[in-house]
């Protein structure tokens, strides 16, 4: 595995690039106070709407806040949103799908119809409705993203479990008297998890975009939180001042692309069917 990873770094430049971008963003988000010299929240109306300069690398917004600081701090929210959503949705979806696939029969039928019901809504609209009804703050936005995201994991997991549970080692385990729970946890899930992991890594970029979209529409965390999607929408009224929307937009772009590159690389590594000869 480790050797494969090494080879992956060497042969897959996009993966390497993705890792560099994401590590850089994570470092920036963690060390934000060290990198930036302005507070991302405190207003300074004497310097509002200034173009990028040596003092303010990315310029300032309509409250005179330093956009560079806000972009760096904003990484925290986007990273958090991407990771938390994928982990939660992945865990929920995995167990849900595994149970449905393993138990089968009528329960499977009911469980899967329910997840399809959620899938049948347009994702963005469903997330907006949840957010609008519950009130928009960071927690509710993440909640909405998880609600929208988990069914696809459940479907994937179920389909894999259906084939895994026919394997001889599962039958052997049952014959040895293992409990249902043990079979599920020790045999089925560990042998089906790969495809979910692949899906999760490619999904991080999507979730970051989705989170930014909701914030752009005013359904994310409350201002003055330096959140990228919200910063892009701040600049909409200032068409000829590109830096207000431009830099946070660029940040969303690099983060999403970086996460996707990593996802693609990991798929190459983990999916035996797609793995190239290194």
């Amino acid at each position: 595995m480790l050797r494969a990873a090494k080879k992956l770094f060497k042969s897959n430049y996009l993966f390497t690039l993705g890792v560099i971008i994401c590590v850089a963003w994570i470092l920036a988000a963690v060390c934000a106070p060290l990198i930036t010299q302005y507070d991302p929240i405190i207003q300074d109306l004497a310097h509002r709407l200034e173009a990028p300069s040596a003092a303010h690398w990315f310029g300032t917004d309509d409250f005179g806040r330093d956009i560079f600081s806000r972009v760096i701090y904003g990484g925290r929210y986007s990273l958090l949103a991407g990771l938390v959503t994928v982990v939660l949705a992945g865990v929920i979806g995995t167990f849900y799908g595994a149970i449905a696939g393993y138990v089968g029969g009528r329960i499977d039928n009911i469980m899967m119809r329910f997840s399809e019901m959620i899938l049948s809504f347009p994702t963005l609209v469903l997330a907006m409705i949840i957010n609008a009804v519950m009130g928009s703050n960071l927690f509710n936005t993440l909640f909405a993203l998880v609600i929208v995201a988990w069914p696809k994991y459940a479907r994937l997991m179920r389909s894999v479990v259906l084939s895994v549970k026919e394997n001889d080692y599962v039958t052997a385990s049952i014959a040895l008297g293992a409990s249902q729970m043990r079979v599920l946890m020790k045999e089925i899930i560990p042998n089906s998890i790969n495809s979910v992991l692949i899906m999760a890594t490619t999904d991080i970029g999507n979730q970051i975009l989705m989170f930014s979209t909701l914030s752009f529409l005013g359904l994310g965390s409350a201002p003055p939180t330096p959140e990228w999607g919200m910063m892009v929408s701040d600049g909409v009224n200032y068409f000829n001042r590109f830096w207000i929307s431009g830099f946070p937009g660029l940040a969303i772009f690099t983060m999403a692309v970086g996460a996707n590159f990593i996802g693609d690389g990991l798929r190459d590594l983990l999916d035996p069917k797609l793995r190239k000869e290194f």
Partner: protein
Amino acid sequence: MKKKLLALVLVLTLVISALAACGGGGDADGGGADGDAATTLVVAMEGAGLETFDPGNVYETYASPVMNLCYDNLFNFVGDDPNVQPILVESYQFSEDAKTLTCVLKPDLKFASGNPLTSADVAFSINRCKNLKGNPSFITDTIESIETPDERTVVFHLTEPDSAFISKLTYKSMAILDSEAAKEQGATDAADAAETDTARNYLDNTSLGSGPFVLEKYTPNEEIVLVRNENYWGEPSDFERVVFKLQSDANTQMMTLTQGDVDIALNLTDDTVAQLDGAENVAVVNKPSMTVCFVMFNMDPEIGGPMANKDVQQAVRLCLDYQGIQQIVGEGTVTPYSFLQDGFMGSKGTRDVSYTDIEAAKQKLADAGYPDGFDVELTVCDLSFTGTALTDVAQKVKDDLAKIGINVTIVQQPWAAGFGDAYRAGEVPFTVMYWNIDYFDPNVQLEFLPGKLVGLRAKWTEDMDPEIAALIKDCMAETDDAKRAEILGKLQDMTYENGPFIFVAQGPCHYGYNTRLTGVTFSAPHVIDLTQVKLAE
């Protein structure tokens, strides 16, 4: 061979359609500038979904400049003058009890059709508006009956003393219709007009008024064309045609204005106005509108918590950075003195931005028992006023309150998903909201006082300030404007440092116009009074 033929046909189709498109474009351009371009006034304004120009039904803001050109009212506001003036009326008299208004019409008034304008037309038009029970019928609520003893005299009997009544008569749906012509189109002023009147379709596309222009054509979402009324009883306009281009995008308006394609642009933003700096032949108007943004506390301690405390309210009033808020809302913003916006009859004007005093605010907060401040939630909805999001003002308030130790957390709640209902029911503890006037009279602002519509939304009841409540009644009954202004002045002083509202900004409007014109000013009731726009000498 077949393939070649097909290709040829496709190419020909493309060429022909391209040519047709060009031709069409040329025609459309020519249509707007029919006649002499110099005597055509082109106005760009927002107007998506303007529904009607029927005086009995008209309600939308951007129908106002059109109605103002096509119809006359008994009284009206001219240019940017905040005092009402008689238009069709020669003389008028309010009765002692302020419940009867007698108006005598000017002689020799006539409609665009040539029909004479008489008291019967006045009674017909206003009764029709009342009986249609449409959106604007609220304006007739205080009318009990209308009497017409002779051709030139109209007597209004009111249900209660209403000192705002003359201002109400300037409202666009109180415009005087040519009753003879309207009846031919199915109009009626009978009590069941809501069901039996059939003139609306006709009046949506044509005007039957006595104004300096006549509505010639209305193409929804595209343009409104007016032509000069050759029968006009007053001084004729400098322009033969007025064309309203219904185009709301500020950037497009700015570009067409600099290119000289439009003469007046009504929906510029702070940002686009800045780009007009130094443009040739273009001047701008940045004026405070009547749309006012306010901070509101709930007076009920159970709901408002610490914000219900008068000393806390005063501390907030002292610590807000009014100048900063003006900057955020944009060029032309002012801070009103109190509940009555600058520009109204009787207004005490603006609050000086040097009112801000952080030390005094800290002292007030300590007096209230919170020397170290406290945490509070500020609920704000997703609406905007004059181009500024309420959340932007909320962010500024948060920043200012942090200076005296009040730690604000902003909670966003969409208007449609709960905030609107909670706000109207008076259940919001602390918020930033805005208010737009229905008609142009200072009495509309009395709603912000205890026991009235908006006052109750802050749970400000009459018994909390009985002195103010008594003055409100006096103000409603005082038909002498000088005396009414005096009462309004007292009310403004009593709320200058008191009450659950802090009026932080009157949002600006930004107009741009070609310097070949004069008389372009902001008009609160009409958006813009185009009757006063003339060609520069």
